[in-house]
């Protein structure tokens, strides 16, 4: 069955890893939103190139990174193929014609655009995630984005139960086999098994949540008028620089694309 994603990977001393989590989040968002709008292939390609250079700066272990990258490639590849099959932009030279499946230079270009764009959007997020610890992230949200401590740390406390609930799920599936219910080969049986397990998991999860809430309250969780932080993470000049660099990158890429006359809005 599924396994939890591997533990945080990167070298904590690498310059980009030491950035504040909110900075990394902002960088990912600053890249995503303009790229969502752009519909050409030049803009995301430039951004993607710069990102690949940044991979070294994050100090991510290459072997693990390639493994994760492989999944991103898989997703991107599947998007590429589906676009090829379902697009109606089939101008240019026909390279391949099997009746239903028609591949032309334009359809390849269009599909590649979507794929590259997706990759350029995905990478910063994967990198940020690989180099950030959830507790640090929660601290940063509360400290710099002024999110409500009750909600942020409430959610963080719930996150701690993620492996516990995952184990519970495995137990639930085994317990069902012990009662004579299993997935077998029929999809209907599978759905019944799944929905029964989902229900019980929710019951158990809610019970745990109620107990956790009581425990948190008994340690003063609601008295948060003046809550302090045990792990303060001040913003540093490097954070500001990183943001500026990201803005410059995206603006630059867009400018180059406009200058080349290739820039267009998506779907037009």
């Amino acid at each position, binding site marked *: 069955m599924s*396994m939890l994603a591997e533990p945080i990977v990167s070298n904590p001393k690498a310059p980009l890893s030491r950035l504040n989590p909110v900075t990394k989040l902002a960088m990912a968002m600053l890249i995503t939103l303009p790229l969502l709008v752009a519909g050409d292939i030049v803009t995301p390609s430039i951004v993607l190139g710069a990102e690949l250079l940044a991979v070294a700066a994050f100090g991510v272990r290459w072997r693990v990174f390639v493994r994760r990258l492989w999944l991103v490639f898989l997703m991107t590849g599947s998007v590429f193929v589906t676009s090829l099959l379902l697009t109606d932009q089939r101008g240019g030279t026909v390279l391949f014609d099997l009746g239903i499946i028609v591949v032309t230079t334009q359809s390849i270009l269009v599909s590649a655009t979507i794929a590259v764009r997706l990759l350029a959007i995905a990478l910063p997020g994967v990198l940020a995630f690989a180099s950030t*610890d*959830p*507790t640090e992230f929660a601290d940063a949200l509360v400290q710099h984005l002024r999110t409500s401590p009750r909600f942020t*740390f409430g959610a*963080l*406390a719930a*996150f*701690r*139960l993620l*492996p*516990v609930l995952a184990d*519970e799920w495995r*137990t*639930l599936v*085994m*317990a*069902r*086999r*012990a*009662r*004579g*219910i*299993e997935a*077998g080969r029929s999809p209907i049986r599978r759905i019944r098994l799944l929905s*029964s397990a989902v229900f*019980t998991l929710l*019951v*158990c999860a809610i019970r*745990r949540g109620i*107990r*956790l809430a*009581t*425990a*948190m*309250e*008994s*340690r*003063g*969780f609601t*008295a*948060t*008028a*003046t*809550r*302090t*932080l*045990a*792990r*303060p993470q001040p913003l540093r000049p490097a954070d500001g620089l990183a943001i500026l660099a990201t803005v410059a990158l995206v603006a630059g890429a867009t400018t180059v694309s406009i200058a080349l006359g290739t820039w267009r809005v998506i779907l037009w």
Partner: protein
Amino acid sequence: MRIRARGWRFRYAGRSEWAVRDLDLDIEPGERVLLAGPSGAGKSTLLTAIAGLLDPDQAGETAGSLTVGGEPPAAVRHRIGLVFQDPETQLVMARCGDDVAFGLENLGVPTDVIWPRVDAALDLTGFPYGRDHPTGRLSGGEKQRLVLSGVMALDPDLLLLDEPTANLDPEGAALVREAVDRALAATGAGLLVVDHRVDDWLPLVNRVIVLDQGGSLLADGEPTQIYQSYADALQAAGVWLPGSSGPVRRASKPAGPTVLFAEDLTYTYPGHTDRPPAVSDIRLELQANQALAITGPNGSGKSTLALLLAGLLPPTSGRVDVTNVPDIGSADTPAARLSRRRRPLHRLPARQLVRMIGTVFQDPEHQFLTQRVYDELALGPRVMGRSPDEVSRIVDELLQRLHLSHLADANPFTLSGGEKRRLSVATALATGPAILLLDEPTFGQDLRTWLELIELLAELRDAGHAIGFVSHDPQFVAALADRTVELKAGRLVA
């Protein structure tokens, strides 16, 4: 801080019965009190009220007065520390130090003061690991000690413990009690502990208060005196008395043929190939008319072994096989039987497995599949393909035998702890298996259910079943087991 109650009563919203009634109580600062009583006696309610945590939303009516340190409990919440039963749902953060710091952050303690206090609190309870140790990798007993550290870091005047060792194995429980003792000795805080294992807490307390089933005061005074004067009433109320041991039920017939055997059984969890296997080279036999106990310290692989024996986990190497067991209602031609024999247990379809082995999990709720007790019992026979008449016959018989008839229409999740346990055993029996495997059947149960289980399992054993159970409860093992095997680090101890 002094706890004072005068005529205090409390009733939850929507209920007709009072959880606690007419309580008159005086507890001096620094006193160490054990609060005992049967399940449902309102002990947890009283504790929650003293801690000032009764949810105004869910609350019902109160009458009389309850003050702590002269004020309503909610006003002095920050001076009271509370430790609950389930270690898993009291930890908040992923790293030990952060968890202890959590309470300090909540109370607005300045950042530069936080970490010294964290270290002091970890020291106080003798916590064996450092600040950055992941909380997910702690044992139950270690988790409770960490919770205690987090609570003591807030420097409470009063420590409330609600069955803190109920979910722990004996070693973990002992370590927790030791940690409590250290913490109290160092700070002079008062103690109010709810537990029904009285023996264990006697060295730490100087006063015992007993509530009865209806939530009224039954006895209050010095421990040994109480146990002498009220012994009978206490026992009837389901309180464990010091020095008492349960009944002993040995097999009344000689052991029957072997029905389940394991050979060279080894299991390594996927992804844990860098560590030694959870279970190695196990050779084991289960016989009819016998109860086999599987014991061992925390993490010794007992539960893994139980799952392997039940055919729910595929062994990494070795085999588990069932023999000499009639397969009721399935094709019984020699060829069919032969093909079943050749298939290892974990590969058998669930429908066949269920006819031979009934497995009872540690948490009964994990095995509930329907919305009604009746349907829960009917499910097994239906899966096996029995006729409706047979199904209702089987269900009615089980309902009676396990005293669940009055609950036939209830939702399984709404049952009490003991009722859920009985229901989970009943559902395992509904398919008529010859073998019954149980994982920690007495986990979190009170005395009454504990005794019921002994009688029930002894009866089943003497009726011809083969019983295998995993337990860290030494008294339960002593009461029921005809044979015992011990596991240590995944291997059988000779």
